[in-house]
């Protein structure tokens, strides 16, 4: 009887005990259990146990990193749902998207969510990069995390690009044909040098991307593999490292005088009443800036609940935006891909239209040369700017906000002037049709704009005696160029890539 009674009691207690053993240390109510709540959990312990109050001000991050992560999560969940029905074979692919859109219960809604969360992700990742740049948060010891971030940016764009082919409609087919030929465009140079027969990196890139010489079944299965398998794995790995390094770098960057500026708070009290004996023994053998060796962490609050609730709020907001977009706008689907008739105009997704605008002058420089220069330039920022002033501060550093304002004006003006001159008067080939290709490859509106921006930035370095000032100018100009080219590509280019003030002026056929 006794054993049976105990059995029943254990059975009764089992659910509570399962929860207890999962959480290990009980509900996060005291400082101690709040700490174990974080470091006793493999996912949460990418966070530090305590968070500096500066990191929690919403102007520090604008929540953009978490919004990117949330959009990623939404895209993963909706994407996995789409995989239940999607078939990666030409014809079948288009039909299965149609089924998802018109037949599958909630299919259209899930497809819309997937499409819009991917767009939201591109926006928030770029904005997050801009915030890390403008707050000078890439500086020591965060240089490498900036590079990881660039990896995340490229992977994000790669995911969008590969996903674009999957519906196998006219939009998809021609955007990817153009993309694959951009991969092949180093031939523009090797052809001009007469070297393509011996050295053909362009042809190799296209072959690897498409698995064939045209966009067909091989290409579709490759893009599918990249989209649902390889790139998500890369993204997950990079994101884990990205988050873990934030913790190892001592949390988010903040100004040197953050504590004074924040002032006292009732939430902050000395954490260690005794000298910490155990916690920092390991930390003591690590060199460099470990968090607060020998003194208790100051001006910090427990990550649970302060940080996690903030993260939850940003996640909910991101979800709301994605759902609202999905309710309001359907994801596009054109006719079945037709390899004989290009979509006119054939436009890539909007965030590549700036590139398409450049590509319309020269494939190699616009599609590979200038993007490579931009990526290398971005990656070098933390290694060229070794200054200290203004870290963790919006528009921190010599020049500050006034310099950014002036750079905005200069960046916008030069992009608009170059573009309008080209739209009005054409470019070298229109004046001298026999101009050799290499001349066009080297001297074109894209390289001209890049040169203007670079010269302006070098001038700033000299004028302010500071690399940070040069970087502020260059990054701002780069954003301006991106916006101007993207807007022109999106709204002002019609059939045959001719400039039109509005689609209502497009010729009828």
């Amino acid at each position: 009887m006794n054993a049976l009674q105990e059995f029943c009691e254990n059975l009764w207690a089992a659910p509570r005990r399962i929860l207890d053993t999962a959480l290990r240390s009980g509900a996060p109510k005291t400082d101690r259990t709040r700490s174990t709540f974080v470091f006793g959990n493999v996912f949460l312990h990418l966070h530090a146990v305590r968070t500096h109050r500066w990191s929690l001000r919403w102007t520090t991050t604008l929540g953009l990193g978490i919004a990117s992560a949330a959009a990623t999560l939404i895209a993963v969940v909706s994407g996995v749902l789409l995989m239940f029905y999607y078939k990666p074979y030409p014809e079948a692919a288009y039909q299965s998207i149609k089924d998802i859109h018109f037949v599958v219960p909630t299919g259209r809604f899930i497809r819309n969510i997937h499409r819009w969360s991917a767009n939201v992700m591109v926006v928030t990742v770029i904005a997050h990069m801009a915030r890390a740049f403008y707050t000078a948060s890439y500086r020591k010891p965060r240089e490498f995390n900036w590079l990881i971030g660039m990896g995340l940016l490229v992977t994000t764009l790669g995911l969008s690009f590969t996903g674009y082919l999957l519906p196998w409609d006219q939009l998809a087919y021609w955007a990817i044909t153009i993309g694959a030929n951009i991969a092949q465009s180093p031939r523009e140079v090797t052809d001009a040098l007469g070297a393509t027969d011996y050295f053909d990196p362009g042809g190799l890139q296209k072959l690897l991307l498409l698995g064939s010489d045209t966009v067909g079944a091989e290409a579709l299965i490759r893009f599918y593999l990249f989209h649902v398998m390889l790139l998500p794995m890369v993204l997950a790995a990079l994101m884990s490292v990205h988050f873990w390094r934030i913790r190892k770098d001592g949390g988010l960057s903040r100004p040197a005088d953050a504590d004074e500026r924040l002032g006292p708070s009732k939430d902050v009290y000395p954490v260690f009443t005794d000298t910490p004996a155990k916690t920092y023994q390991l930390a003591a053998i690590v060199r460099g800036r470990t968090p607060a060796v020998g003194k208790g962490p100051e001006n910090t609050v427990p990550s649970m609940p302060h940080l996690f609730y903030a993260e939850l709020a940003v996640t909910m907001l991101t979800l709301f935006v994605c759902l609202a977009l999905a309710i309001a706008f359907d994801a596009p689907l054109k006719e079945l891909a037709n390899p004989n008739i290009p979509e006119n105009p054939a436009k890539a997704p909007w965030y590549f239209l700036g590139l398409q605008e450049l590509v319309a002058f020269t494939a190699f420089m616009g599609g590979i040369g200038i993007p490579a220069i931009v990526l290398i330039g971005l990656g070098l920022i933390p290694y060229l700017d070794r200054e200290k002033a203004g870290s963790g501060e919006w528009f921190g550093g010599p020049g500050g906000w006034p310099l950014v304002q002036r750079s905005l004006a200069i960046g916008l003006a030069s992009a608009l002037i170059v573009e309008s001159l080209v739209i009005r008067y054409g470019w070298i080939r229109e004046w001298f049709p026999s101009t050799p290709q290499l001349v066009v490859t080297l001297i074109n509106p894209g390289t001209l704009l890049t040169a203007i921006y670079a010269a302006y930035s070098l001038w700033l370095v000299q004028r302010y005696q500071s690399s940070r000032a040069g970087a502020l100018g260059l990054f701002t100009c780069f954003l301006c160029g991106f916006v101007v080219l993207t807007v022109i590509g999106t709204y002002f280019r019609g059939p045959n890539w001719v400039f039109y003030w509005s689609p209502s002026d497009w010729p009828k056929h």
Partner: protein
Amino acid sequence: MNSETKHSRLEPELMPRRDVLGMASLWAAGSAFMFALFGIARLPKAAVLASPSKKFRVTLPETLPASGAFVPPGRNVSISRDSEGVHAVSLVCTHLGCIVNTSSDGFECPCHGSRFDRNGAVTRGPAPQPLPWLKVTGSGNEVVVDEGATVPSGTKV
């Protein structure tokens, strides 16, 4: 003993002799992985392309439009005939692979506005190369066009 006490337990001598073997095995493993990577990288590079045959036979209609420009259905080739013979021009734009349309004085590309004259030479826009002329064999109205083989422009049969 006393020579070792100079180094702390945390920062030992840089490379004691016994590590040489360790380094050697690391390098061996490293180069084995590089070698494997080389093998792995070979797989995605297709050796045989799964595209349909590029050669096709076509019967030309008795009367071609004055501008030439007969486009067999489903093919991206423009075939013309004049007193000197028949020739075929590829309609795949040399810029980024869109299919060009025939216009009154040649060809124009819908994607980024490249224009070509009737012989395929670039007259404006970003295309780096002229439209290639394709190999045509046969005679009369029965010809075989090979989209995979180019001939110097001006070759007519």
